[in-house]
């Protein structure tokens, strides 16, 4: 689904902020930066799927009365500016589980999906110049009653693979993330980041398709920071690589599969004892960014980031010895993101306004003939704000609102299909943060929104409602947290809904 900026409705890792009240009226800058770093990591640990222009998630931490604004690393993904968000050693463990029941679904969506995640994160200051961060994550996804699709998400691809049976599919695999930040001089920062993930999937019935996916993301960055730290400017380069292999095999009869070109036309592949689809993707992204804080007054700042990127994907299907070209897809575009924030040190108040403009184009050919079969042009404009108000000594409320406009111009040419629509999405949230006592925090958050989805959802709009609640308790050895989440996506027509439940446990020190 083209969700635009409604990131909180995607699979995410719950974050917890450390909060101490009673002894202190406000959290220190160090802790603010630490929490920001954790948010950063959670939002971009997505090595299974490294798209061009990864989503910038406006995450709000819960179980805390502190609300931090976006930092430059979250906006730009330049590893050289990571150090600004991190000042202390930190270790974090988390175990999460989500259950999504699709009473309303698209044709090739699973009837139910369960996700399990284990992850470990740490960052450490090695010395005055070096900072190291690393994370390991294990993901498992169980999809039930998947109709024919051999893709993890059929609608994410233009060239998808299906067979003729309904079955269950299990995916699992590890992800590794590593970041190294080095200060060449007092002002010049360098950074290197690598994100690597492998995933394997297996369908339980004929064609018993085995999926093997390898994702890699490399980033290099450099930045200049002023002596007082109020100004920072940087540039970065990113290389992404993706390899997906789908092996459908014979069981009593040869493996019979189909390849989709877009969402309306498919091709019956010759049945074989092994029918393989290969996706090979490479891409590059170049960006520049700058940030200025304490403009005119303490706590007022601005961040700007822009990037240009391009990627290509080559798809082949057929025998392992002589695969046939089935598709070649190119995407290119650019993104600009701006954020104005106000977060004075003397207060817990926080306010930010952000704007994003993203423009990209896709074109694809079907492989054998040099003609364009699919075109898609998209312009995304997103505008939003977040406000955090401390209400009383033991409470605070965080509210936010976001609006998004996606102009889609999609064409299929094999059998003419045109889709031209402006999607207007919005969402809002309110998060009440409470201090139960000196060692225990809690929060409760409600969200509401509307999404105008793409044509394959077969509905004009989807209403989204969500509720989260969590608690955190400080122990001698660290802090343990637990949270529960519910989300309901309901189409405008009365046809069931998508219900999602999640539970998470965490430990940090």
């Amino acid at each position, binding site marked *: 689904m083209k969700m635009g900026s409604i990131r909180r409705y995607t699979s995410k890792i719950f974050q917890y902020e450390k909060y101490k009240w009673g002894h202190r009226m406000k959290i220190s800058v160090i802790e603010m930066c630490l929490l920001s770093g954790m948010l950063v990591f959670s939002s971009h640990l997505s090595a299974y799927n490294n798209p061009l222009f990864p989503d910038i998630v406006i995450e709000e931490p819960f179980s805390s009365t502190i609300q931090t604004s976006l930092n430059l690393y979250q906006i730009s993904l330049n590893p050289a500016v990571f150090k600004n968000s991190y000042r202390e050693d930190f270790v974090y463990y988390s175990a999460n589980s989500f259950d999504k029941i699709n009473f309303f679904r698209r044709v090739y969506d699973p009837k139910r999906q369960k996700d399990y995640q284990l992850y470990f994160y740490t960052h450490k200051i090695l010395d005055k110049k070096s900072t190291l961060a690393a994370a390991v994550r294990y993901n498992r996804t169980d999809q039930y009653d998947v109709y024919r699709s051999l893709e993890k998400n059929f609608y994410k691809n233009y060239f998808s693979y299906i067979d003729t049976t309904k079955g269950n599919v299990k995916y699992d695999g590890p992800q590794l993330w590593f970041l190294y930040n080095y200060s060449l001089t007092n002002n010049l920062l360098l950074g290197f980041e690598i994100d690597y993930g492998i995933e394997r999937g297996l369908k339980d019935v004929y064609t018993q398709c085995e999926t093997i996916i390898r994702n890699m993301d490399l980033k290099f960055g450099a930045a200049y920071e002023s002596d007082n730290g109020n100004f920072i400017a940087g540039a970065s380069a990113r290389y992404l690589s993706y390899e997906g292999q789908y092996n459908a095999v014979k069981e009593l009869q040869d493996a019979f599969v189909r390849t989709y*070109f877009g969402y309306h*036309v*498919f*091709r*019956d592949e010759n049945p074989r004892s092994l029918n393989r689809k290969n996706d090979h993707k*490479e891409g*590059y992204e*170049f960006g520049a960014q700058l940030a200025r804080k304490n403009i005119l007054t303490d706590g007022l700042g601005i961040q700007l980031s822009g990037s240009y990127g*391009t990627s*290509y994907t080559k798809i082949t299907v057929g025998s392992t010895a002589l695969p046939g070209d089935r598709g*070649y897809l*190119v995407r290119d575009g650019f993104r600009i993101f701006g954020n104005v924030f106000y977060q004075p040190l003397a207060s817990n108040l926080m306010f930010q306004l952000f704007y994003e403009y993203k423009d990209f184009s896709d*074109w694809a*050919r*079907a492989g*054998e*003939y*040099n*003609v*364009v*079969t699919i*075109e898609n042009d998209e312009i995304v404009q997103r505008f939003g704000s977040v406000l955090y108000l401390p209400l009383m000594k033991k409470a605070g409320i965080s509210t936010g609102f976001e609006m998004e406009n996606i102009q889609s111009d999609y*064409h299929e*040419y*094999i*059998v*003419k299909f045109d889709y031209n629509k402006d999607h207007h999405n919005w969402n809002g949230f309110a998060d009440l943060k409470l201090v139960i006592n000196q060692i225990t925090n809690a929060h409760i958050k409600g969200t509401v929104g509307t999404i105008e989805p793409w044509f394959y959802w077969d509905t004009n709009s989807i209403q989204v409602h969500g509720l989260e609640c969590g608690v955190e308790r400080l122990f001698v050895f660290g802090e343990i947290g637990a949270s529960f989440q519910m989300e309901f996506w309901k189409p405008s027509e009365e046809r069931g809904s998508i219900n999602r439940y999640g539970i998470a446990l965490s430990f940090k020190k």
Partner: protein
Amino acid sequence: MGAMKKPFLLLFLLFVVSACFREQPTQVDGSLNLTLYIKFEDRFLKSIPVTIKTYDYNITSLSGITDSGGAVSFENIPWAEYFITIKSTAVVASALDSNAMDTVTIIASTLITPPETSIIENTITDTIYTIASGAQPGLKINELYTVGPPNRKNYFSDQFFELYNSSEDTVYLDGMLFVRIYHLLEWPSSIFQFPGEPLTGREYPVPPGAFVVVALDAMDHTNIPNFPLPESVNLSQADWEFKNSMDYGDYDNPNVPNIDNIEVGCRIDFGIGLTMDVILITDGSDLNYFDGIAIESIIDGVEYASFSTHIKDVEKEVDRGFGGVGLIKYSGQSLERVAVGFDSNNSTVDFVIIPHPTPGYQHE
């Protein structure tokens, strides 16, 4: 100077990156135009339905009708490989009388792949040559030796037929029929059948390019005791032999498999006219000969007559003409296709008289 290098380095990097990617094609799919001219012999055919189908995508087949110029166009179709099929009736000049017209069934099938044919802009133009139904590659009656060798004793037991597989697939003789037609398909007069199950049997293969000799009597006719016939043929190595199991006096070579009679009450060997007759081979799917022979079951049919004023005995869909004009009884002449397997469904042009039979091989 160092500062100036950086923008150039960035531009170079962008250039290298972009060079790794293919260029966007200028044309979009669904813009292919296909124009086909349909011909039969030298004439463009009008009002002929043409069907094109691609197996590259799950799209329905498209049909069109040729115009007065024999052309049919399909516009704005996807770029793909197309299988063209034509099957229709057409009124064409008679093979026997250029002033008369015949209605014949014409067929054609071919594959068109866009890069392999001439394209001007996004248009493919091609000519499809149709043939008369029955002329497509397959099992053919390639030679008929019926007149007998030079002799004064009316000896003609050395008759044989030679079959040839002109297709690229193995065909199977199981259950096929050899039929002699007296007049039109309604009146078969001699029916013999290969052993095995019709249509599905796989015991008697004929590979592509292979000859099959079917002899009346599979013996060496050149070396009959007290009756030498040096201009006859040695058929002792024939592949098959006609043998009516109810004809106890008929010669039977034990080393040659038999084709037996299936006509109830018939007690004689397969008989065929020396200089005039009609011979068919059918696939054996129609064994009810009482109502005639179903035309759909005919694999090949040949009519021959030694005189040009002969009135045709079989439907023109089976054979538009007749060969053998000029055949002489007891001359040792044979009637063979001008080239091995050549078939335009018109025996007038397909066959030539050769001076001596060539069982199992093509004359030169």
